[in-house]
């Protein structure tokens, strides 16, 4: 047996293989969605993945302390960027989300998904245990979640706002806040749904209504969901075969390379492809959950678990959307959908979780 040098051993090969498998599968689908061509999507997505993967590995080598120290600063910086989007951002896709930095269209709301987790994790790490059941544990967190969520809603981007809230609430939940807070908040939320609904934009309201009754408008706003279900349903168990998806190739499926890429995949690869993809994501989330459970510090625990939730939220909402279980909210499928912003977020999450993992491997366990 050839002795493996420790430097090579420290590289998380299994994780790289898993991420590459998911993304590689995505590249195949993008190749097909482009009508059997590497351009315009697959090639660019592949290059992007390699760069972001290297970035994630670098993030994973950084000491966890660094993240903890810069959590608030990072959070404030991203919040300022969100305000900047409101002030300077230009209208793209019907809502203001992008900040043109010249070389890159930056979507600060994506960064906020990570920043909110780090900031809350830091907050609860610093919070004295005795204060866990007091309001001191509650209101700063609510403000920290509320400001970016409100800013993102203004863009308006319901999906990302929900993602920020979900990750934030999960961190609060894991921090040990009393259960009845969450229970009563859920009840109050349910009661105020109709009021919240009235605050939504017309097109968002329409999406929700269409989601509740997609058949009501099969050619209009319900078109996305109907066509997506047709694509998935017509794929059957084994799919129509690579490059043979008619729904995507004949443009019936809208956004077949971004938000609805799962439908494009399912049409050609069928249930087998879908279950394989779900299994791959399961492996990814299992790894990150384990990292959270074995984290050496409280900051590491909360960060890893919160970021796991961020990844999961992408995945669950996107899949529910393409299968007609959630309204069309414009959330991409992690690593699979074409697009830089979501991949940047996911790979940042992965990088930070790697940092938590290496922190717990290199030092002795210390939970306080």
């Amino acid at each position, binding site marked *: 047996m050839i002795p493996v040098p420790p430097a090579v051993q420290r590289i998380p090969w299994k994780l790289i293989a898993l991420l590459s498998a998911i993304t590689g599968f995505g590249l195949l689908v993008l190749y097909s969605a482009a009508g059997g061509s590497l351009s315009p999507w697959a090639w660019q997505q592949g290059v992007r993945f390699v760069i972001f993967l290297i970035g994630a590995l670098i993030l994973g080598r950084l000491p966890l302390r660094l993240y903890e120290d810069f959590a608030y600063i990072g959070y404030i910086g991203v919040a300022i960027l969100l305000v900047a989007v409101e002030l300077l951002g230009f209208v793209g896709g019907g809502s203001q989300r992008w900040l043109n930095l010249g070389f890159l269209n930056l979507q600060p709301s994506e960064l906020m998904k990570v920043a909110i987790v780090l900031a809350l994790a830091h907050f609860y790490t610093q919070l004295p245990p005795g204060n866990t059941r007091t309001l001191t544990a509650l209101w700063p967190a609510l403000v920290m979640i509320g400001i970016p969520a409100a800013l993102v809603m203004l863009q308006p981007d319901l999906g990302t706002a929900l993602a920020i809230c979900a990750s934030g609430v999960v961190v609060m939940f*894991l921090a040990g806040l009393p259960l009845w807070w969450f229970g009563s908040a859920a009840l109050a939320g349910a009661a105020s749904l109709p009021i919240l609904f009235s605050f939504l934009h017309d097109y968002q309201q329409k999406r929700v209504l269409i989601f509740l009754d997609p058949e009501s408008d099969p050619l209009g706003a319900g078109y996305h969901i109907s066509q997506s279900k047709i694509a998935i349903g017509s794929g059957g168990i084994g799919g129509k075969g690579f490059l043979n998806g008619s729904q995507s190739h004949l443009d019936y499926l809208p956004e077949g390379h971004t938000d609805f890429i799962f439908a494009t995949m399912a049409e050609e690869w069928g249930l087998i492809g879908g279950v394989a993809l779900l299994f791959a994501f399961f492996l990814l989330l299992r790894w990150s959950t384990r990292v959270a459970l074995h984290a050496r510090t409280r900051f590491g625990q909360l960060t890893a678990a919160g970021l796991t939730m961020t990844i*999961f939220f992408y995945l669950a909402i996107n899949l529910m959307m393409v299968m007609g279980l959630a309204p069309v909210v414009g959330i991409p499928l992690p690593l699979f959908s074409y697009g830089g912003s979501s991949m940047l977020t996911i790979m940042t999450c992965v990088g930070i979780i790697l940092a938590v993992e290496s922190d717990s491997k290199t030092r002795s366990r210390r939970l306080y």
Partner: protein
Amino acid sequence: MKRRQPPITEAWRGLTFTRRALVIGGAQAAVGVALAARMAYISVVDNDRYVLESESNRVNLTLVPPRRGWIVDRHGKALANNRVSLRIDIIPDRLHDKDAVLARLRTLLRLDGDTMERIERDLKAASGFQPVAVKEDVSEADYASVLVRLPDLPGIAPARGFARNYPTGAAVGHLIGYVGAPNAEEYEKAKDPLYITPGFKIGKDGLEKYFEPMLKGKPGARRVEVTARGKIVRDLNTKPDVQGKTVHLTIDADLQEYAARRMGRESGAAIVIDCLSGDILAFIAMPSFDPNSFSDGISNSEYAWLRANDHQPLINKATRGLYPPGSTLKPMAALAAMQHGVDPGERHTCIGGYRLGSRFFRCLGTHGTIDMQTAIEKSCNSYFYWLGHRLGYDAIAPAARLLGLGEEYKLAGSNQRYGTIPDSAWKLRKYGREWSASDSLNAIIGQGYVLANPLQLAVMTARIASGQTLYPRLINRHFEHHALPFTAEQLEVARRGMWRVVNGAGTAGRSRLPFDDIQMAGKTGTAQVRGLSGGSGKGGDWKYRDHGLFIGFAPYDNPRYAMSVVIEHGMGGSRAAAPVAKDIFTFLFDRDKAMKALEEFEGGWGGTIKERMDRDYAAWKAGAASDPEPGVPR
């Protein structure tokens, strides 16, 4: 009430984290399993449904209207066939910039406001790939001009189809009928997507309607793979249409056209029947409409022109026109009388009329002492008044019915009004009054209550000529023919009388056939329009003039063809109807001779039917344009 909480320590916090993280992880796993189940449900349980929907997305089926079956005459010559027709359609789903495209089309094809409105309306009602017709029968040049601009006209589909064509135009209008695009009710009834396919026509009238199931054919289909934006990716397959079956008529197309043209500017009908089989060789009702115009979708103004014409071109006078048959019933009355024991040699003296009680029924002449044959020859009313008074009409009516009068025939595609052969029971039923002797006198000379259509007169003639119960037919349909219950001698009296009408000193002496060896037998009739006593009927306002009728058969010695001719307001059978019959018979035996005669006439009338109709229509349109209230033409 405050519940005691356990003290919060770092260790408790760690434990809580682990517990709650496991709950979260479990919830995530549950969601994952639910998603997998949902996907399995969609793709396995609902698979059939979604495969179907995906296919209906992908594949677009366009119906190709079938070519209509031909209608041909007894020699296989086309009375109705199909010609290539170029058309422009719109596929609504592919029309992205409607206003711009329609504006381009409007200038390219010179569409008028009405058409634009109709297109807009159709587009609103249409869905998906169901094409909407823009214009049918575009010229080669217009078609080409659209074709070259096609890249700038998304959603426009030029197509090469077929249109119904009637080579002899108006000559077959009332015989064949016409086709037209199905209307909303017809589509509702048939529920056939073919009915809303542009270019598909159904029979609307006459034989076209009657033989619709035979003529229709089976549509073809074109399956193409299309993108969501309507771009055709490739043709999947094309199923050719199956042309409708050919309908063979008993009509002789040349004779039909000749007879129609020979009617000239008159209004009336003419029927020629083969005395051996009952085959209808010519079936004319003039003036007529041009079925080509109807089949292409007649314009409002052309329809108004047809309606405004006092010669009523929209009415099929051959089976729907009822006329008092006048003296044409005299041979029939003679047969009836002989059947009731009247000796044809018995003489009656005509003193210029017949006295019945205080009334004097006039004859057209003073014929002296005459027998039955002479009475037919001279069309002596007095003689028949005498017979009618002696026998009563109840004795005559059965013979009239035996010869086909008052009967509705089983005839393909015709809508018949079958008239009246009155008798005492009929009058009692209808008017509640007793039959009188004067009713018999009026009826026996074909006036009064008696009404018949031209087809019935032709059938009567064919039956007298053949001695058989012939039934008229337009297709090869089997009828049992029986001998009529008249003796050969009785029939010969009637036929000989009719021979003398033409070849003796009779009323149609000027209409002898121009042959040495072929002679025509016939009988003229003049039906008074105003009633027996009033007016002269020989001049004045056209619509108050007498109808001219003629029945005849030829050759006399071996009857082959029987005919009836009715000329509305023609002022007498010998003057208006007999010459027409003469030329039509001439055509049957010598076409060149007959054509020569016709060409002379047409020179005087102002050209062929089509030329005259086109000119009349143009004149009417010009008149209608200046006249805010378009009324009667000319």
